[in-house]
């Protein structure tokens, strides 16, 4: 079962965004506001309850310079370990796949293998190298991702990719867990006389005391 991107933001409202004051202006959109980015969100059957979207994908049309900050918790989840290796291996990335429902943390070698299979399957669909696909997971700790549901959803998720505000909004909803609101924002500013855009989405409500490096 897969809901469409158009339905995604009906599940929870958008968060109020408390941007600090500065020389920028807030613009519509989140992760797709900057040139070259597409996003999508859909329900792929990973959540234990309800049909709120639970799979999100963000892609870039070109090799994007990539950076990451990750939990310093020694018991890091499989996707965290995978992403750190991928970012050590290459300075660029093309896609970020995110699932909600299962955190894939404390799942051992089997959980890591799930990440490898997920990134490889998406890389094949997008005709990328596996290390160009980064993975984030959130949800119940100790549970592996529902891999078959995830893999079966990937073709539809790729087809839903869009550079629109709706694409960004549906992705922002799809990464939420106990969140009551989705978090997405974009700004436009001048850097060296050229207009640039920075956008983003985030999720989080509980188990929040980040210490990322």
């Amino acid at each position, binding site marked *: 079962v897969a809901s469409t991107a158009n339905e995604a933001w009906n599940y929870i409202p958008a968060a109020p965004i*408390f941007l600090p004051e500065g020389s920028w202006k807030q613009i519509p959109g989140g992760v797709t506001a900057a040139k070259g980015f597409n996003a999508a969100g859909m329900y792929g059957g990973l959540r234990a309850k309800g049909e709120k979207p639970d799979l999100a994908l963000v892609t870039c049309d070109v090799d994007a310079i990539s950076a990451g900050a990750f939990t310093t918790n020694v018991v890091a989840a499989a996707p965290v370990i995978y992403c750190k290796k991928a970012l050590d291996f290459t300075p660029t990335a093309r896609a970020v796949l995110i699932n909600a429902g299962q955190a894939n943390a404390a799942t051992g070698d089997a959980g890591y293998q799930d990440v490898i299979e997920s990134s490889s399957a998406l890389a094949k669909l997008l005709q990328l190298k596996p290390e160009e696909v980064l993975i984030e997971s*959130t949800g119940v700790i100790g549970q592996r991702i529902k891999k078959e549901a995830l893999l079966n959803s990937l073709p539809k998720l790729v087809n839903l990719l869009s550079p629109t505000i709706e694409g960004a909004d549906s992705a922002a909803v799809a990464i939420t867990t106990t969140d009551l609101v989705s978090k997405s924002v974009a700004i436009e500013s001048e850097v060296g006389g050229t207009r640039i855009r920075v956008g*983003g989405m985030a999720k989080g*409500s509980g188990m929040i005391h980040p210490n*990322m490096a």
Partner: protein
Amino acid sequence: TMLGVITTDALVTSTVWRKMVQVAVNRSFNQITVDGDTSTNDAVIALASGLSGSNKISSLNSSEAKQLQECLDAVMQGLAKSIAWDGEGATCLIEVTVTGASCEAEAAKIARSVASSSLTKAAVYGRDPNWGRIACAAGYAGIPFEASKLRISLGDILLMDGGQPLPFDRAVASNYLRKAGETHGTVKIQISIGDGPGSGLAWGCDLSYDYVKINAEYTT
């Protein structure tokens, strides 16, 4: 767990981008707290397409790098504050500002200590302008400062100055907290610990009965 994906069309080298992202994360996501539990999955991934047509930023000390850093800080802080605002069971966002420290890192550490204090959070939920709990959390942050220089304000209400508690209108202060809770607004706690140039911010939320209810029912 908190997750984030950040995108930009600015053109920047890998080395500079990775440093900028860590700085912005330290000023935003690493300065929020809801319950003191550090997740196994916290991650922020930031991608720069370079398609804006801007000049390539290859030095952290350039004016262009500073401009982009400010934009990155703003977006990440906006998202981070939304996470704290949406903390499980929260009725309000708490913003803690610390000034007068010797450097940004020390101020940030004190600010987060106060934002993560369970007793301070519970006091805010109880609409109790409890300067003692705020002072206590500042004091155990691990950053030495002269207690005689401690100054604490709640919104515009000065509660402590020169390390001494001040007379204040308790009803007005309590009402400030109550109004923030009723509107899911923001409680501002401002702390000064001396005359240094360092300042920092942290964000949290109040601690309500609902936090326990939500997490008692969200099983592993």
